[in-house]
């Protein structure tokens, strides 16, 4: 990632609108806007928020043997990944997975979408377009495949929160038909005229977009891909359209606290250059049979099948908003005070609190009207032993010490998978 400082095409807008900026993945990005992280986090839970995610990179894989290459390199089995029946990935659908090294370490996580016959879009993290493209090239010898790193050549905006579909529908041409059948992890349209699906989906002003029912907050919403020349106009158009829903721009800090509460990993922090074993995200790799064999072979699969690791990555939640900032001194101790591992992520989900022992979200149907979320720290630990949900450990930086509970899940009542018909 280096020290280079890239910017997205919305950088000037962020600065002009008072964002507190910081370097992330090589890009100078908004951390929060003047309304603050708490308002942004709660805004997504209670209505909707808009995120500039153009720092993320797009790589395309095309050709007769594109599927062969992705089957070799991507952790999910693209022939057995859709729905309960485990159908193949088809045009218009997306799947989350990983690119691993031969020793089972995570190079990056990605969403792979099939945009056309023999044409796949791979969305990876900021600064990773070139690295993932090189990795694919390395394994493509002899294959009829073309790999393009489109870093900084595709604009990306996420709109997340329960009112997202209402806001997006108001700027879409033919919104009724577009929104009528739109399952989680599916997409429609394309952002330029390079594919025959271009023009399938346009905004009212004619801008072609790719609209994907995906995101990184655990909440209902979309990722919009647009041509870079249209990024600013689409951003301001959505903000204008979302005014009646109090749609606000949100920075990376709210994105981080939302995804932590949703138990989603941050690449290079919660998953990274260590073996992908004993994690809360087994769904990111191909299915295994009862004997432990994967449904396909892929780069890293042999290592994962044979590795014996005593390291466990586990989600946790605290009892109040207090955090331990991740640093060299920060570590996890058991009740006896023994150092048992390190903290990967520690954030505060401001939409939740505890009622007794139970975690309650401000968005819950049964949440009492007078519930005021105080916020709970949450995130991921990497410890040297198996722990069960409900076990208690302590996070410390050597000075402060906070009690946290190992969890299977953190923020309840998330909306990401709600059926579209409930959200219009």
């Amino acid at each position, binding site marked *: 990632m280096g020290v280079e400082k890239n910017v997205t095409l919305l950088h000037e807008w962020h600065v002009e609108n*008072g*964002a*507190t*900026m910081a370097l992330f993945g090589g890009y100078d990005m908004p*951390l*929060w806007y003047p309304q*603050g*992280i*708490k*308002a942004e*986090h709660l805004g997504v839970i209670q209505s909707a928020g808009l995120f500039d995610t153009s720092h993320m990179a797009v790589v395309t894989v095309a050709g007769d043997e594109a599927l062969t290459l992705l089957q070799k390199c991507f952790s999910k089995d693209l022939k057995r990944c859709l729905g309960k029946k485990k159908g193949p990935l088809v045009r218009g659908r997306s799947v989350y997975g990983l690119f691993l090294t031969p020793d089972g370490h995570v190079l990056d996580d990605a969403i792979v979408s099939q945009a056309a016959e023999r044409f796949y879009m791979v969305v990876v993290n900021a600064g990773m377009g070139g690295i993932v493209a090189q990795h694919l090239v390395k394994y493509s010898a002899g294959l009829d495949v073309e790999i393009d790193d489109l870093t900084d050549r595709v604009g990306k905006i996420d709109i997340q929160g329960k009112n997202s579909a209402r806001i997006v529908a108001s700027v879409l041409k033919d919104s009724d038909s577009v929104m009528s059948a739109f399952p989680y992890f599916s997409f429609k349209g394309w952002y330029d005229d390079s594919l025959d699906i271009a023009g399938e989906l346009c905004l009212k002003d004619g801008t072609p977009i790719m609209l994907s029912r995906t995101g990184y907050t655990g909440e209902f919403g979309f990722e919009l891909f647009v041509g870079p020349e249209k990024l600013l106009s689409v951003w301001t158009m959505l903000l204008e359209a979302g005014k009646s829903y109090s749609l606000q721009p949100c920075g990376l*800090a709210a994105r981080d*606290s939302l995804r932590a509460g949703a138990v989603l990993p941050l690449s290079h922090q919660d998953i990274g250059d260590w073996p992908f074993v004993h994690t809360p995200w087994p769904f990111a790799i191909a299915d295994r049979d009862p004997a432990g064999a994967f449904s396909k072979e892929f780069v890293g699969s042999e290592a994962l099948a044979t590795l014996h690791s005593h390291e466990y990555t586990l989600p946790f939640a605290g009892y*109040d*908003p*207090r*955090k*331990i*900032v991740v640093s060299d001194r920060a570590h996890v101790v058991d009740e006896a005070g023994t150092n048992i591992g390190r903290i990967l992520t520690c*954030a*505060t989900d*401001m939409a939740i609190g505890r009622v007794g022992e139970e975690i309650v979200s401000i968005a819950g149907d049964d949440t009492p009207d007078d519930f005021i979320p*105080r*916020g709970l720290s949450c995130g991921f630990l990497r410890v040297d032993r198996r722990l069960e949900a409900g076990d208690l450990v302590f996070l410390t930086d050597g000075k*402060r010490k906070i009690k946290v509970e190992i969890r299977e899940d953190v923020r309840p009542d998330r909306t990401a998978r709600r059926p579209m018909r409930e959200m219009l």
Partner: protein
Amino acid sequence: MKEINDLNLPEDIRYSDDHEWAKVSGDTVLIGISDYAQDQLGDIVFVELPEVGDCFEAGDEFGTLESVKAVSELYFPLGGEVVAVNEELGDAPELLNQDPYSGWIIEIKPNDSNELEKLLDRDAYLEILRGE
């Protein structure tokens, strides 16, 4: 983030280079954090306070402020005994963001009120902020 010229920095209080403020109130001194500090921290979600009766020297850590993104220590701008803590911050830590000067944190009885003179006035504090 606020521009330095947009910061609210009252004339009638003293500042420390750790971004606390101190204001004389009769025999005691109220202590809080500056507008710059609250702006840098972002939304404050939790305040860890000392006990009434605790005694500290200037520069000692007396508590922590927790924002959504960071944890920040609080330091005594001058030595003394804690005679009151702002209990309101327990339920409403955001008061420190809303008005960091009415949102005091602790009240102390100073060991030596001359120490107050060693703290920065508004202009000297502004100089430090311009250097950061």
